[in-house]
């Protein structure tokens, strides 16, 4: 049986086990349900879990390791000249064998005979069954394919047997345990909690995965360039570093990128924070609930628009507009500049500030407002002097979240920030950011096994650390804030 069929059977078995357990439990004490610890459903669940879970776990592990075994087995019988080749070539040969094997399974016995007789005929037959192969298969390949099919059949049989054994054994074991005193509910719930726990470990594993996937390449990069130079260098000009110029190492300087990243984020915050905060204040304190109910989700749409759309908006609309405004007032504003990217990014993160702040302001206990009104304060005085100071830590948390979003934003800056790594204070000039460089170093025409591309991973790692720091800080602030109200 194939894996999916097996799983399906196990599911059926689990259902049967469930029903059995259910009925058995009902019989345990038909007159006094209270005398039985757990409800029949839990007994059923207990039985079903014992029946299916071990078998499923074993099956999954088996299926994960099976291909390697089969591969090794079939490989060992490949023609000698194939085996001499590299691992990749063996892999390719195996690919052909697999295709042929699939093809053979789709043929009728008569066709199989015909296919064996003539490779050309085999190719034609396979193609007619939807299996395209590049060249007519040699006899050895067909032999290997048959072997592959045989081993697969065997493995499947064994798998089925093991699964059946485990299911039956589990069923019997659990069935004998069914009794009024069995804490079936607790057992089943333990499994549920374990499953929940496993789910929450995915987040951890993701982080581990991220760290691992950038760590090794970063280390490789730091073999070329010293970590100190990377962190403290003020010049980003990796291309010319590779020439082996004197002082070339310093040209992987993170600082201009870091500055660009922070500068754009700051501009974005300068746009988003006042607008977002004032909008939040108006929505939570002044606006009619109906207005709030429409404005809030409408603003939230700003965060839902794909950033690539913002990117083009920046290049096509905002950049030229700023440039035009600049020329009207006698300023040179480059179309891609800190301002362009910052403003557009600011628009994007408005909802992060407005929605979160709105929630936070609304959560400020009404007692504070009443306390202030009671002293004869106007509404704006109350907001400015009581509500905002009280909400400040939460608002700071929201702003930090928006900031980390801005720091990590890619598509807008790729299109709107520019790529010159400038250490400039002038917001009308273009700077570049860490994310821009990650994309361009990875997708460019650069030679791939050089520090120029490896640096992308080091940059990714830096970015990860940066946002981590911000988040830890945000959490610290939010924690503090929580305590104040509890």
């Amino acid at each position, binding site marked *: 049986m194939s894996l999916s069929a097996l799983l399906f059977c196990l599911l059926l078995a689990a259902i049967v086990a469930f029903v059995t357990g259910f009925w058995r439990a009902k019989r345990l004490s038909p007159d006094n349900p209270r005398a039985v610890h757990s409800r029949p459903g839990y007994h059923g669940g207990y039985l079903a879990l014992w029946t299916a879970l071990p078998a499923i776990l074993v099956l999954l592990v088996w299926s994960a390791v099976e291909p390697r075994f089969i591969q090794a087995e079939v490989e060992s019988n490949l023609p000698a000249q194939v085996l001499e080749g590299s691992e990749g070539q063996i892999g390719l040969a195996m690919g052909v064998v697999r295709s042929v094997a699939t093809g053979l399974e789709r043929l009728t016995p008569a066709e199989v005979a015909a296919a064996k007789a003539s490779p050309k005929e085999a190719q034609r037959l396979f193609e007619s069954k939807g299996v395209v192969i590049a060249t007519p298969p040699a006899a050895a390949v067909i032999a290997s394919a048959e072997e592959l099919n045989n081993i697969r059949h065997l493995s499947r049989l064994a798998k089925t047997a093991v699964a059946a054994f485990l299911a039956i054994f589990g069923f019997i074991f659990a069935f004998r345990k069914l009794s009024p005193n069995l804490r079936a509910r607790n057992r089943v719930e333990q499994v549920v909690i374990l499953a929940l726990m496993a789910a929450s470990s995915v987040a951890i594993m993701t982080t581990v995965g991220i760290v691992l996937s950038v760590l090794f390449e970063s280390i490789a990069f730091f073999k070329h360039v010293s970590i100190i130079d990377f962190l403290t260098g003020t010049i980003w000009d990796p291309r010319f570093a590779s020439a082996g110029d004197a002082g070339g190492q310093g040209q992987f300087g993170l600082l201009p990128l870091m500055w660009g990243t922070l500068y754009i984020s700051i501009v974005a915050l300068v746009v988003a924070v006042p607008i977002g905060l004032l909008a939040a204040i108006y929505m939570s304190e002044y606006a009619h609930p109906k207005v709030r109910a429409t404005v809030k989700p409408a603003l939230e749409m700003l965060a839902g628009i794909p950033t690539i759309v913002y990117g083009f908006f920046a290049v096509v609309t905002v950049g030229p507009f700023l440039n035009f405004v600049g020329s009207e007032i006698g300023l040179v504003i480059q179309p891609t500049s800190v301002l362009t990217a910052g403003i557009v990014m600011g628009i994007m993160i408005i909802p992060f500030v407005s929605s979160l702040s709105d929630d936070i302001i609304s959560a400020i206990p009404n007692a504070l407002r009443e306390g202030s009104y009671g002293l004869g304060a106007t509404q704006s005085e109350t907001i400015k002097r009581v509500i905002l100071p*009280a909400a400040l830590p939460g608002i700071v948390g929201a702003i930090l979240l928006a900031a980390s979003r801005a720091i990590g934003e890619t598509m807008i800056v790729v299109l709107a920030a520019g790529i010159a790594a400038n250490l400039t204070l002038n917001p009308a000039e273009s700077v570049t950011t860490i994310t821009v460089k990650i994309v361009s170093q990875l997708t460019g025409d650069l030679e791939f096994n050089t520090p120029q591309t490896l640096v992308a991973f080091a940059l990714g790692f830096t970015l990860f650390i940066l946002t981590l720091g911000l988040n830890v800080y945000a959490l610290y602030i939010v924690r503090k804030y929580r305590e104040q109200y509890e």
Partner: protein
Amino acid sequence: MVDFSIEPSALNSSRTASGLPTAQPVDYKITARNVSVFYGEKQALFSVGIDIPDRSVTAFIGPSGCGKSTFLRCFNRMNDTIASARVKGEILVQGKNIYGPDVDPVQVRARVGMVFQKPNPFPKTIFENVAYGPRIHGLAKSKSDLEEIVVKSLQRAGLFNEVKDRLDGEGTGLSGGQQQRLCIARAIAVSPEVILMDEPCSALDPIATAKIEELIDELRENYCIVIVTHNMQQAARVSQRTAFFHLGYLVEEDTTDQIFMNPKDKRTQDYITGRFG
């Protein structure tokens, strides 16, 4: 038969003596006429009228939901802050209708201070809590002026000695009873004419309650105080006049002695003898 009698000390006879004789005309600080309050469709208060004398404590009692808070919040137009609330009738404070056409509720609230059920100090320093009112109303000419106001208010609220070393500590860091006294100090700091208190002790422990009651007794000498309470013993202990509310109606209003010893209405009697509530 269980005896719920209140001992003389609780209904301090000396206070009663210094209280206001009912029959005699007094200068009323607040006069309410035909006040009805609606929350949306629902009427919470039905044409209530009352006269509240200055320099004394008037207690509102009655079972939960009878409209005590609603009525109290009419006196400083606090009900304005509830979108669904509508107030009809007139309320004169010092002879002027605070629901008149060109009255600014903000100014009303400066004249009629309020203390709430749950102590609600601002999350600022103790000093800033008290200084807040004077600042927004521009009551202090200078820094030292402001300091003086703050200190005096804290002293009056009987809190100064406890907090004088940590005026720049957080107001929320005080104990519940201290917080409530801080709120009273905050209210006093804008020198209101009236102080409204909505169950000021219901969130406090007995010792803190006793302190607040003492304080109310002292403040009475300078302010017109209206207090809502659930606790009849408390009403008896601190007030000179008592008004009993039931289902949105003002059932009976008289000197505290009269209400507790000689209630005219059957409902009042049932309530104070614990038949309900």
